């Protein structure tokens, strides 16, 4: 466990160092980037739709980031940088005024206008689109001030608005193209560094350099070939045999194996995290003492070892990575493995004799089943009998959305590098978790609303500390561990920056324009 924590921190430090001090002569920075070449990328995600507003898995994020551009974007250090907007003002916590870059063209040659921005954001808000960012933007209004100026306003103060619009899901599309009847699921027409050359749903996508990209000198690669390979072994073998240059979602069992090979580099950091979700409407999980008992019973270090081969740092406090400005050190060791404490909490709740329940677990990944088995053994120690029920994805979704479960093992990732991400999971109006089971915690609701209403970081830090305290106290979820997400690539692939936390899924997308083959 110490080793994973440490290596996790090293990874963070290394990426910070890379950003803040390139002059120190990092090996990659010492080399001169080369233009041209092809990157062959293998991904676990079967991307079946390229609609830039409807989330379709990690590789979808990479493709959308390459093909389209949002108004603003993320730099590798998490700061927000200009993309289609060259600058912006925030007159108050409800409004942002964006000034667009001049002379940007879509891949089909049509010039980008302020009206396209309005159309795109309204397309996201339209319930018909089922866009990923819809819940974040409901009620927002978009005003075209002149050909290159757009004003976006929220009905209430919303400190997260800029962070939301910087996600690849906030892609700007061409009104003319969409209204002309294009199928945005199978074709693409963006302003990104690459244009779509070939696409076969769930099989492959070939991207070619966009020579008119608005960032000078980028992209460096001529071609990016994305192959979607669901089988873990096939993906790893394709990298090892030289058929691919880079793969995502390196299976946990292979992280150490590939790192030891001289030709490959493996970058890994905590992204998504694993949790036990309770249905707080079902007895006895409506009692916070029972949920806290579970939080004390689970042996997170054992799970990190057994299920993640050491690549899954345990979470004893809230799921905030230690490099986040909102990280609270004294909450980080809130829970520890303490079966005695767990038993006494159960006794307080009147369950000294223990209980039986069903734990719903996704069957498709070994990490889920192994984690569930360790949890089952841990709970046995405190007299709780967990029956593991393995279900496939569609069944899991149906149960989640209808609230038909007692407890469920579920992996999630923060969608935005902003602590308001908690609202996405625990906010009473969010259909992600709370709404289907009718979970509403008024104390939490108030805190989350306060957190959105101010843009002053110091105030927000104090508020989100209280949010995290409340979440640990009431434990609607047991936070288990970060699952490290790793990318492996050949040594001649340069310029890739692996990011932790909420930007983890976007690492390849953010790095792609600057990547090159040596």
């Amino acid at each position: 466990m110490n080793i994973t924590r440490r290596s996790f921190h090293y990874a963070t430090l290394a990426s910070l160092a890379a950003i803040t001090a390139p002059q120190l002569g990092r090996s990659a920075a010492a080399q001169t980037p080369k233009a041209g070449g092809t990157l062959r990328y293998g991904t676990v995600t079967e991307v079946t739709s390229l609609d830039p507003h409807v989330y379709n898995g990690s590789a979808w994020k990479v493709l959308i980031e390459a093909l389209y551009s949002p108004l603003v974007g993320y730099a590798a250090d998490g700061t927000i940088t200009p993309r289609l907007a060259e600058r912006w003002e925030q007159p108050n916590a409800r409004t942002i005024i964006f000034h667009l870059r001049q002379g940007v063209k879509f891949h089909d040659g049509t010039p980008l206008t302020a009206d396209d921005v309005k159309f795109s954001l309204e397309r996201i808000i339209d319930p018909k689109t089922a866009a990923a960012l819809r819940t974040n933007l409901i009620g927002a209004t978009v005003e075209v001030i002149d050909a290159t100026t757009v004003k976006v306003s929220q009905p209430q103060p919303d400190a997260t608005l800029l962070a939301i619009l910087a996600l690849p899901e906030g892609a700007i599309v061409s009104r003319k193209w969409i209204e002309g009847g294009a199928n945005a699921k199978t074709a693409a027409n963006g302003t990104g560094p690459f244009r779509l050359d070939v696409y076969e749903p769930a099989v492959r996508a070939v991207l070619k350099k966009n020579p008119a990209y608005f960032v000078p000198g980028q992209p460096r690669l001529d071609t990016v070939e994305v192959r979607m390979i669901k089988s873990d072994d096939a993906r790893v073998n394709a990298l090892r045999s030289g058929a691919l240059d880079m793969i995502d979602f390196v299976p946990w069992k292979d992280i150490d194996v590939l790192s030891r090979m001289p030709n490959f580099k493996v970058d890994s950091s905590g992204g998504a995290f694993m949790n036990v979700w309770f249905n707080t409407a079902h007895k006895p999980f409506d009692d916070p003492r029972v949920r806290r008992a579970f939080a004390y019973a689970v042996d997170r270090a054992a799970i990190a070892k057994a299920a993640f081969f050491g690549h899954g740092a345990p979470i004893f406090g809230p799921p905030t990575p230690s490099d986040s400005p909102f990280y609270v050190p004294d909450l980080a060791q809130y829970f520890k493995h303490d079966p005695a404490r767990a038993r006494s909490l159960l006794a307080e709740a009147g369950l000294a004799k223990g209980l039986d329940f069903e734990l719903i677990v996704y069957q498709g990944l070994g990490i889920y089943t192994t984690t569930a088995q360790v949890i089952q053994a841990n709970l046995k120690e405190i007299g709780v009998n967990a029956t593991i029920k393995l279900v496939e994805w569609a069944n899991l979704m149906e149960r989640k959305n209808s609230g038909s479960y007692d407890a469920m093992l579920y992996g999630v990732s923060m969608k935005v590098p902003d602590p308001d991400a908690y609202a996405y999971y625990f906010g009473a109006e969010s259909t992600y978790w709370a709404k289907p089971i009718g979970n509403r915690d008024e104390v939490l609701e108030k805190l989350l609303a306060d957190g959105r209403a101010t843009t002053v970081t110091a105030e927000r830090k104090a508020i989100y500390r209280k949010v995290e305290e409340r979440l640990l106290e009431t434990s609607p979820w047991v936070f288990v561990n970060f699952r490290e997400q790793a990318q492996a690539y050949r040594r001649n692939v340069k310029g890739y920056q692996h990011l932790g936390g909420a930007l983890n899924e976007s690492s390849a997308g953010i790095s792609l324009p600057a990547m090159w083959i040596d």
Partner: protein
Amino acid sequence: MHRFVAHRFVSSLITMALASIVVFLSIHLLPGDPVVMVLGEQAGADPMAVARVRAELGLDLPLPTQFVRWASAVLHGDLGHSLRSGEPVVAELARRIPRSLEIIFGGLVAAVVFGIPLGTIAARDRGRVSGLIASIVAIAGFSAPVFVSGIILVLIFSLWLGLLPSSGYVALDDDPLTHFACLVLPCVAIGINFMGVVARMTRSSLIDTLSKDYVRMARAKGLTRGQAMTRHALPNALVPVIAIVGIRAGNLLGGTVIVEALFDWPGLSSLLVSACFARDYPVMQGCLLSIFAIFIVISLLIDIAQSIVDPRVRTGTK
């Protein structure tokens, strides 16, 4: 002859119609909601959005109505659109079916090319070391599951020797050489299993034939053992082997589910698997219907071929 073909054709059509009902019902009886899968983790839990999309897709209608709509569209050659990509299912199938047929055909060729000589050696050298070795190879072939033999093949030919790609697909017109290089391992993997069956069948049928009077007659006439075998015994011994190859060729279609996943070959089976997990009903229905159709066409062709070779099949006397 014409009556026989017509008869088999009509019964194939009836089988197809029954199969389509089974396909449709079994898909709609699965737990898991396609609408939720279309909408995703967040919007899929919003009852209003779910109801709207359900109505859009016509999934709120009674099942018999849905079936009649679907069946009449199918008869007009329209299998609907994929819920995920919005592409016509027919277009997707047209891309995928030839790729799966390539694997099946390649596997069949590998099985016959290796299986018949192996079985012949096993029969001819029965009781000798060479015969024993041939038998062991055949048994090992059909005992090893495809996912085991596939992984061993990748390990040897791709990771150790670096001769062939471990997985993947390249279109024939992009690069024919790589296309066939990618095809070798999946075909051999699926063929090895079937090779065992062909070899065992050849061996037992040949042993049976070798003891027939006409073979002894040929030997008495002065032919060598080898001549008697190749000119008289083998052609007759192969009749039941052909029948077995025909019957089992359809089964290879089942084997492609594993092989396509293992070798990342984007054929019909991998489309079906991914459509199943996503509850993409139109694609699932299209895939299953194609699989039934392929199966039925193969057995129809085999029946006709056999009736040409062996007239007893036609008249029903045996």
